[in-house]
């Protein structure tokens, strides 16, 4: 397929209205295979304006007289308006954008063509978190080993090649346990909490089915986990479904661990919203945020009605529960829902952020996202195919990753000195998860990324971020290492709407940005005065 078949027009004169606070831009509009370009006319000296077509979530066209208007709603929640001269040109451009923005093929996507200056292909793809993380675990305990049983992705297509498992369990047993778990996602280690010697594991649901089948190897595996922790260790299975939903899953071959089969393990059900309901919540919140004229009552009732903050609260408190089990109860925690690729990852990654100071650094957090989301098989391509504006019927879309970022933002607000990264990094991850010139968030699993040769043919977002000129935007100027666990308050009074994301394009950000600028200034001044002391006396 050639892009040129989909591009129905050469160029047109247009005016772009980027948002309420920014001045309009006039110039020549042009559609290319991956971008919408606007080159400003001669009187203006502004730079070329560029929009990745992939980031267009929905498109709306209107024609009147001999001109037309296209409204582009982007996946990063920005709303752009283009006034175009000529009815034909408008319709052609709209059709081209529609066709190009919804291309499903991965290998023709922009990351495969993006070759920025200063970056080398293959850079920062050397993050191999399971192996890398295993080195850390191995320093802390020898109860675990790195298994390459999934080397060819045959055991579990959504796991990476290497996983960390109890030393006492051999690869054959892993294979049997994998057959007993949905999608082959047998329990693997995601975090070893050295202070209490306990571990955090994740998996998918066991395939007990209506007959309440059992699997000896799976039971052995979990027994080995407890034995490897400390004598008399107990375990908790945090099921992210309600007890009833877990029971119902038996009818379709799934289910949950029977109490008698797993001595020492206790099950806790904490239902978390997922899938379509979560997507709807996101859509409704964004809708509410798009209407600045609404009355106070209407706004509050929509904020309530969309339930987004309730989901934030549930996610955070479940993560706290898991973290508390490890830190306070000295218990091992296994988290799973059904597939174990969505809410499970939400809980395990947040629990690590609460407990592990290293994951709160910039590199530690990038590693956490890589290890607990990308390599752990969160289906980014399916979940982030559309953002909140799409009119298409949602199929597999769900803003689970966004919910994670929101929870991290809440943590950062409650512990403003304890995260090394700032809001900027979270916003960047949100944007790139939905549409990116980098390959990091492409595909649904490591297996697919291997098939598409993502690592060798695209650039990694992490190297992109690390080469970013404005590192300041990603950092928290006030960071100081906090060796303790950070326990957030989950009371509704303590949770806030993430205005920086949901109202990013509708509210004037100046004052808060100016304030942060001032904070930076104070911090650098401090570094300067401290640094300049010796020189002053020489």
């Amino acid at each position: 397929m050639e892009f040129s078949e989909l591009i129905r027009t050469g160029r047109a004169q247009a005016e772009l209205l980027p948002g309420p606070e920014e001045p309009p831009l006039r110039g020549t509009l042009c559609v290319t295979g991956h971008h919408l370009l606007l080159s400003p006319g001669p009187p203006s000296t502004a730079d070329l304006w560029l929009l990745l077509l992939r980031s267009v979530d929905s498109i709306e066209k209107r024609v009147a007289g001999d001109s037309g208007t296209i409204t582009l709603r982007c996946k990063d929640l920005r709303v752009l308006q283009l006034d175009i001269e000529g009815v034909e040109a408008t319709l052609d451009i709209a059709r081209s954008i529609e066709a190009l923005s919804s291309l499903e093929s991965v290998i023709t996507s922009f990351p495969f063509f993006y070759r920025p200056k200063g970056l080398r292909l293959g850079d920062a793809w050397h993050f191999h978190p399971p192996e890398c993380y295993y080195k850390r675990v191995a320093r802390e305990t020898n109860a675990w080993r790195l298994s390459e049983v999934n080397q060819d992705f045959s055991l579990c297509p959504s796991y990476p090649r290497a996983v960390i498992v109890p030393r006492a369990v051999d690869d054959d047993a892993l294979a049997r346990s994998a057959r007993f778990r949905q999608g082959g996602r047998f329990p693997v280690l995601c975090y070893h909490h050295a202070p209490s010697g306990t571990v955090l594991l994740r998996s998918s649901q066991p395939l007990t089915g209506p007959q309440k089948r059992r699997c000896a190897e799976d039971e052995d595996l979990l027994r080995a986990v407890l034995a490897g922790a400390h004598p008399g260790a107990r375990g908790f299975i945090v099921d992210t479904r309600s007890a009833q939903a877990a029971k119902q899953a038996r009818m379709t071959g799934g289910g949950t661990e029977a109490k008698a089969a797993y001595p020492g393990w206790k099950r806790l059900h904490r239902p978390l919203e997922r899938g379509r309901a979560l997507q709807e919540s996101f859509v409704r919140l964004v809708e509410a945020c798009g209407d600045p004229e609404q009355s106070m009552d209407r706004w509050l009732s929509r904020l309530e009605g969309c339930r987004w903050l309730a989901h934030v609260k549930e996610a955070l408190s479940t993560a706290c529960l898991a973290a508390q089990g490890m830190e306070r109860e000295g218990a091992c925690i296994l988290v799973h829902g059904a597939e174990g690729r969505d809410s499970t990852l939400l809980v395990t990654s947040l629990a690590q952020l609460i407990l592990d100071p290293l994951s709160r650094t910039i590199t530690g957090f990038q590693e956490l996202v890589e290890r607990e989301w990308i390599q752990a098989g969160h289906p980014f391509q399916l979940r982030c195919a559309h953002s909140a504006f799409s009119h298409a019927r949602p199929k597999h879309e769900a803003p689970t990753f966004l919910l994670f970022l929101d929870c991290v933002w809440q943590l950062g607000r409650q512990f403003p000195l304890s995260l090394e990264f700032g809001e900027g990094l979270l916003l960047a991850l949100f944007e790139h998860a939905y549409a990116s010139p980098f390959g990091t968030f492409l595909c649904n699993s490591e297996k697919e990324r291997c098939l598409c040769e993502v690592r060798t043919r695209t650039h990694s977002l992490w190297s992109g971020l690390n080469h970013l000129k404005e590192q300041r935007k990603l950092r928290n100027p006030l960071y100081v290492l906090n060796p303790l666990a950070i326990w957030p308050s989950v009371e509704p009074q303590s949770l806030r709407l993430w205005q920086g994301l949901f109202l990013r394009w509708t509210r004037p950000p100046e004052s808060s940005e100016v304030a942060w600028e001032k904070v930076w200034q104070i911090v650098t001044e401090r570094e300067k005065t401290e640094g300049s002391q010796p020189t002053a006396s020489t």
Partner: protein
Amino acid sequence: MEHIRTTKVEQVKLLDRFSTGNKSLTGTLYLTATHLLFIDSHQKETWILHHHIASVEKLALTTSGCPLVIQCKNFRIVHFIVPRERDCHDIYNSLLQLSKQAKYEDLYAFSYNPKQNDSERLQGWQLIDLAEEYKRMGVPNSHWQLSDANREYKICETYPRELYVPRIASKPIIVGSSKFRSKGRFPVLCYYHEEKEAAICRCSQPLSGFSARCLEDEHLLQAISKANPVNRYMYVVDTRPKLNAMANRAAGKGYENEDNYSNIRFQFVGIENIHVMRSSLQKLLEVNGTRGLSVNDFYSGLESSGWLRHIKAVMDAAIFLAKAIMVENASVLVHCSDGWDRTSQVCSLGSLLLDSYYRTIKGFMVLIEKDWISFGHKFSERCGHLDGDPKEVSPVFTQFLECVWHLTEQFPQAFEFNEAFLLQIHEHIHSCQFGNFLGNCQKEREDLKLKEKTYSLWPFLLDDQKKFLNPLYSSKSQRFTVLEPNTVSFNFKFWRNMYHQFDRTLHPRQSIFNIIMNMNEQNKQLEKDIQDLESKIKQCKNKQSDGVLTKELLHSVHPESPILKTSLCLKEQTLLPVNDALRTIEGSNPADNRYSDYTEEFSKSEPGVVSLEYGVARMTC
């Protein structure tokens, strides 16, 4: 003291308001003449001023004792369990008596003694000088003058003695107008914008009924608009909802008829009355006090209380004022019914938007002193200082502070003061510890001889101003930089630090504010040190030219160190010990939070189905 039956009760439990696990601290409760004091087993003291107590409630006896719930006007809520019912009953009765005084003379301010002599006290009272403030605004001038009409409080008891009116308004006009206005509160100057030569004036509603007119009043309004040389028309802003204003006409009151007044533009802005505001706050507090509150209940409660809607209404009205002056160059006359509640809110907030002076610590004190205290906002009745009519109590001033807080959130660099300053002022409008807010108008304050018998709050706040400084404040702004707040609904947030000030677990565990503050301090200190060092070096160099050895010189800079290098290290060490201390890491305790109540569930042995109280969650084991 005669009200105190028991002064000390031991083994009292203080319950944590936001824990479902019934966690508590055990300690001793003391009752003093002015405070209730609880000292827990860690020797941590909780002081509660009797005047802060809004209500005391004795709940039904439980197995562990008799519960006593105290709600305070600063939104603190404490829940004690007293082991013996008789003790509880005694404390309950004492507190009922102590928290509701019948006479001003029994209030704390009359016994509070900060160990100052008479001249210090007098100086304190002179700190805020309103005549000085009018001078700063630029009056008197060729259009405005000081009127002596109310010098003896003859025209209006609830106004101050000194009032500024248009120069062309004669005394008969003033007297005539005052007879046509509710409580005699005729139109007077409240803020003068020197650059625009436009004024904010205030008054109460006219006694117009369905058809009454008053020529003097019409003249006075004309005089006000004539005092503005640029713009011939003026706005008359009635801050009430139209319906309320119309209802008032039946009682012989009402609003200005545009046909009778030349050159006025009349406008309603729809702020609700004190009763609506009181019950709105009541609802808000009920919602927030709920244990195990869900996110949805919180937001639906916030909505149905209407609180933020009211805050927005006040803000919108103030913006209207600022725009009239800045954009149209028009003077504005503001009134509500009596002109001491909504009018005070709108006038003071409008001035705050217009004039950056009011955004400084001192300026904010002046603003409160002028628009609230001197113009007769009935602090004692609105705050319920004395045992009086509960229908007169209303959080009008609290709303003003909340509006200011919203502005500080939108303009983090525009204010010299921080949130703590607002909270501290709120604390003291109820504390009755200082004389400023006692009484309902200036005349009453003079009759009470407050300046002789009590102290002024402001000098104490100024002494403490370090605590109240906003580290992000940028003072370079011009006097007339106008704030133009955006009042889309998204911008109004629940003020957690006000309504949950004492619920520690709900707040962020680390404060950006403190750390920036400390860094700022430290920067200043370091810069000073650098200067010192540089000047010493200069001195040394001078001496050097006199032939003294460098090495010895450096010794004189750091006499305690033998060589330069170590001296520098030492210097760094001694200079920056704060470094570590200042970035204290506050971890937090999971036990502070609700999810921690699972702890008990964790340790329980195999229960069947445990459904937790308050529907927090359900666990099946």
